[in-house]
């Protein structure tokens, strides 16, 4: 199975094209032994069928976004110039600074930088960030789609609403429901912080809203009215599970509108992992489903950086996950449930949204596909039932939630999809971001003012600053900076422009073999505020 190619990854990055084709061919044959014809994509977490290309077709032109605009006259040479590299790296970058006084409370979050670099066309990763308006706190998440981007797109649009609703006190829920009932203006629940490329689908918003409304109506009904003490951890778990359930239900019920009907099926048959952080004052919750990761950057007293992992990967490298899967299924399936480090020999993450092929019974799958639109029916992939499929569900969207109480030495949190973690060690990631962020603080402009400074002194000072900043200088965004390192680092851990430009100028069809989609959010904490909380409460 494709798993071995994951090991080849660093190797592929260093070898010539002929070698890649060799490797790709190798995968190709390996795929053949487990199912019908698969396209030779090397270390896909999920081995898609060619028909999937049509299954999830993006409206946007991926190339246009990533490439930036090309004004050069000459045809694209193999090497991109530094400005071209920058325009690719910066195409999707986004920064948000929390206003210093947002009227209610001083936020423990200074702001965040986010960015993504596509390898798939279109990109299958998604990201979301929003401030909760009816409760305190900020939500940030990265979503890694597979078998298309439909599911990750849907989750990125919907999950935060489910979380926010789960966190709402009973009265607020009633208020909202009454507003909907009487056609009044709704209380805004979330304030989104979106890059222009992060879109919401207009067509499905009504459908999504109805599902969400059903959810809060149930919450209202369930509430006995005795305690409004909402547990964040529980809310997160409920929201994840509920959304996945809704995705599954919507696909089973279908929609009279043929476009929407096809959409909900695409969402359900594709998959997505999610890693979401909820920050409220010093309370940090990370809910994770799948193999994206949350990493806390901690600055030690001596100024050095260390990484604290705030999520567990749900994949074959996680012993307890293997254990869980074995316990959930009969003993005779112990060998088949995880094969070649993949769920049923197919799926790399062991938890995910969507992916009903791993959740529904065979009957249900067949029924839905047969009654579904022709596109679905003609699709070889959707018809294909995973091997050794005896006791579904094999997959869950239930997150693992880790709580962390922020300390002043916790400077930032990195949420990133596995595209980052498979290229860089967590320790390096934290160090690079840490040095970048502190460097940024030191990068105040110099002014001569009234001081006596000679040309020589100034020159010495500037050369020193330049050496320090050489790579930091180009980026105003920590996530961009991290991507630059992730893609362009050479064996010495410094950014090699040549390598960077090679990696970024790979043609669409090759890019996926050298790297995965990378999505990163770097949240910066306000140590002063965190410190003040601590003093207050102790």
């Amino acid at each position: 199975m494709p798993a071995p190619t994951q090991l080849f990854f660093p190797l592929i990055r260093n070898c010539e094209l002929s070698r890649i084709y060799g490797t790709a061919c190798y995968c190709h044959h390996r795929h053949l032994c487990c199912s019908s014809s698969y396209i030779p994509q090397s270390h896909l977490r999920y081995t898609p069928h060619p028909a999937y290309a049509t299954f999830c077709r993006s409206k946007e032109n991926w190339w246009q976004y990533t490439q930036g605009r090309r004004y050069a006259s000459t045809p694209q040479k193999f090497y991109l110039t530094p400005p071209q590299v920058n325009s690719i790296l910066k195409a999707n970058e986004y920064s948000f600074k929390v206003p210093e006084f947002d009227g209610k409370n001083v936020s423990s979050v200074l702001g965040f930088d986010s960015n993504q670099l596509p390898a798939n066309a279109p990109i299958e990763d998604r990201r979301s960030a929003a401030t909760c308006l009816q409760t305190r706190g900020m939500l940030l998440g990265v979503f890694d789609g597979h078998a298309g981007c439909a599911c990750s797109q849907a989750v990125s649009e919907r999950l935060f609403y489910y979380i926010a609703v789960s966190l709402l006190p009973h009265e607020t829920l009633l208020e909202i429901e009454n507003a909907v009932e009487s056609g009044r203006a709704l209380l805004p629940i979330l304030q989104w912080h979106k890059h222009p490329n992060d879109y919401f689908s207009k067509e499905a918003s009504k459908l999504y809203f109805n599902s969400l409304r059903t959810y809060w109506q149930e919450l209202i009904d369930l509430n006995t009215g005795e305690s409004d003490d909402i547990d964040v951890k529980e809310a997160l778990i409920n929201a994840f599970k509920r959304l996945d359930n809704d995705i599954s239900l919507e696909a089973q019920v279908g929609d009279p509108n043929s476009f929407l009907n096809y959409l909900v099926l695409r969402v359900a048959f594709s998959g997505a992992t999610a890693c979401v952080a909820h920050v409220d004052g010093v309370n940090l919750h990370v809910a994770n489903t799948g193999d994206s990761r949350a990493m806390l950057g901690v600055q030690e007293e001596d100024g050095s950086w260390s990484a604290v992992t705030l999520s567990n990967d749900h994949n074959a490298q996680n012993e307890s996950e293997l254990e869980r899967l074995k316990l959930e299924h009969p003993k005779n399936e112990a060998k088949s449930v995880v094969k070649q480090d993949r769920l049923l020999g197919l799926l790399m993450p062991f938890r995910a949204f969507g992916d009903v092929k791993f959740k529904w019974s065979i009957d249900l799958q067949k029924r839905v596909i047969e009654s579904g639109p022709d596109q679905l029916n003609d699709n070889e992939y959707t018809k294909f039932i995973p091997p050794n499929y005896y006791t579904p569900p094999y997959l869950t969207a239930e997150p693992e939630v880790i709580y962390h109480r922020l300390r002043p030495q916790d400077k930032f949190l990195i949420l990133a999809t596995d595209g980052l973690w498979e290229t860089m060690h967590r320790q390096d990631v934290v160090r690079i971001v840490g040095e970048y962020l502190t460097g940024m603080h030191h990068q105040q402009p110099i002014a001569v003012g009234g001081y006596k400074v000679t040309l020589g002194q100034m020159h010495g000072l500037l050369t020193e600053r330049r050496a320090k900043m050489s790579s930091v200088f180009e980026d105003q965004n920590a996530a961009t900076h991290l991507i630059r390192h992730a893609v362009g680092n050479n064996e010495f851990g410094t950014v090699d422009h040549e390598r960077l430009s090679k990696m970024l100028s790979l043609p669409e069809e090759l890019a996926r073999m050298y790297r995965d989609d990378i999505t990163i959010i770097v949240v910066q904490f306000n140590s002063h505020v965190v410190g003040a909380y601590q003093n207050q409460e102790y």
Partner: protein
Amino acid sequence: VMFYRLLSVVQRQRTSRGWQNWPSARSGASAAEAHSVALPAQAQVVICGGGIMGTSVAYHLSKMGWKDIVLLEQGRLAAGSTRFCAGIISTARHLGIEQKMADYSNKLYQQLEQETGIQTGYIRTGSIFLAQTQDRLISLKRINSRLNVIGIPSEIISPKKVAELHPLLNVHDLAGAMHVPEDAVVSSADVALALASAASQNGVQIYDRTSVVHVMIKKGEVTGVETDKGQIECQYFVNCAGQWAYELGLSNEEPISIPLHACEHFYLLTRPLETPLQSNTPNIVDADGRIYIRNWQGGILSGGFEKTPKPIFTEGKNQLEIHNLQEDWDHFEPLLSSLLRRMPDLETLEIMKLVNCPETFTPDMRCIMGESPLVKGYFVLAGMNSAGLSFGGGAGKYLAEWMVYGYPSENVWELDLKRFGALQSSRTFLRHRVMEVMPLLYELKVPRWDFQTGRQLRTSPLYDRLDAQGARWMEKHGFERPKYFVPPDKDLLALEQSKTFYKPDWFDIVESEVKCCKEAVCVIDMSSFTKFEITSTGDQALEILQYLFSNDLDVPVGHIVHTGMLNEGGGYENDCSIARLNKRSFFMISPTDQQVHSWAWLKKHMQLDSNLLLEDVTWKYTALNLIGPRAVDVLSELSYAPITPDHFPSLFCKEMSVGYANGIRVMSMTHTGEPGFMLYIPIEYALHVYNEVMSVGQKYGIRNAGYYALRSLRIEKFFAFWGQDLNTLTTPLECGRESRVKFEKGVDFIGRDALLQQRQNGVYKRLAMFVLDDHDTDLDLWPWWGEPIYRNGLYAGKTTSSAYSYTLERHVCLGFVHNFSEDTGEEQVVTADFINRGEYEIDIAGQRFQAKARLYPVASLYTHKRRKEDVELSDLHGK
């Protein structure tokens, strides 16, 4: 703390005038003291901008006798870029017209103090231009030989001599230098104030703290100006708003595009040296180090043009950005390093401050002057590319002449606003392009360099096809044109070395294209040409064209006429081919960059007549040139129509079908003198026709060719090109095209009187073709254009274009020969005899090469039989 300190600096800059301690900045102001009274209700001219440009225009207009002038300045006089200018006047420029402007400015500023009594701080320091490389030295030598012939002293000197002239310079890494002893420094703000003061004495009214809101326009003419203090009626408006000129141009109801964009520019000021520098210490330009250095109050002033400019004000005037104009030391670091490498002793010198003053740049590195093509009476002078002080005097003079006399005394086409159209006006384009232009100021300018940014704007529908076949592109007026086609087997890496003053790497490629044009057939995409259609309901079209064009257009339907569009002086405003499509409609083909200029000229002279229609159809047609002896075979095979000379004589135009496509305008002419056809194809058929031509042509050995092949072919046949060889000051008689003038028809046309007079008196210059004799193509420097021509050892003119002729195996230059009197320098009549009896030399970067002058093309080039008039009549527009 840092923040407040920065803030205080900014505020100081903004509030205290003369903070730079320019001598007597204040004393000058009194003469031109701002009027606080109400604005006049009307004036003949309103000038917007009280910098060096505005005051220079006011000064020159008032000198020429125009008195009713109002100058408006939004802030104070001589603030803005003029105040912060480094104050260097330098005549070492690449363009002849720029050299002349700078030379005039230098002379004007020198006597300004005497004329006005205002101290301008003018000191003749001289300039030294350093060359770190041999290529840079060649570039300097080219400038040097051109400066000398227009009477500006300059010489190439050794590094040792440099060290003698400037004690602080490190000269170890120098290949040589150029010394221009008459360059000077001056306080630019005081120059502007002196000009304003002189203008004010001549009656010009000056109002500061008055902003122009927009210009009022009625029926395509300026009628007045709306300011924040009221309206002024006026006939003429002059936009000298510097970096705000673009915004101001767009603010009218009918927007005028003035393509320019500002970038931040930094220079350093230091305290005096221990032994203060002499005030006449020469200016240094170290272009390879990207810096300039001048003495400044005993210390130095040094700035430069960095590789990574910071464009500013892309979205217009922005208070936030103005406030943020701070010293950016990190940005200045490469320039500071370069300075300390050049003058190591400055290490211990104390910094006074780093000045950040935005400068304005244009898309082609040349300034912008002239009248708007859309609005009569709307003049512009802006976009100085950091040379405002050097050009100020001369540019102001030319613009004033333009307004007063209708045209300037020199050919300023290279600076004319009409070389641009709305297409260069996109903010994104400008931002990207100026980021390339600013570093380019100090980059080596080798022959045939192309801009890299702002490309692929206008393309032919065949662009992708040609690109896939190895086309290398150049750009003209936003249009991509193929230079040559790299064969598939060619090593592409070897082709990156084309930046040279010597034989370029595409030599062999172009040779094979030329050979194919001569022996088989080539196809060249010439879609960029400007194409107009003039139609009328009656004879109006013919009548107006007969008046506007010098050649007889009353020809049978289907005929093509090469003709000039002349001005009153008989000079070429345009040189084009006109096909008579039918009795009442004409198809006019002009050079690519004529799109705006030619349109404006035609519009200006065509009365508003609903029966007469002028249409720009440039975008409607793709033009393919089939060139070579087998072109006729390809075409006849594709059209099943007889294409023998009897059915399809030379210089004839027919609509016919080519392949499946009908309605293709086929013209039996090429722009090179080779046999062949031009196909004007409605764009939706372009790909089809191209594919058909290529597939049918295969058996005749067809291949793609580019403009370099075209250029070689046309120059070896002595075809002059408008915009390069011909301009508004050259007449048909001066380039041997008398046969294209309808003297005997008894029809009046613009320029007729001037030409008649010239025919009687003789011409004062004559276009000739020079074949270089002792020039080694492999080893010697190649000619480009602008090389001085010597006749019997005396300067006689400059070349206008050049190319290697693969047929003659020699370089060929075109250029004008003058007859300067040995005693007085006065221009005398040039006769054919005068040309023929001279011994000629062409000066390429200081080295002279013997050349044979010819007044007619080399007959042996025409391998095929052609009638004589064909030869003379065939013209070209390709470059």
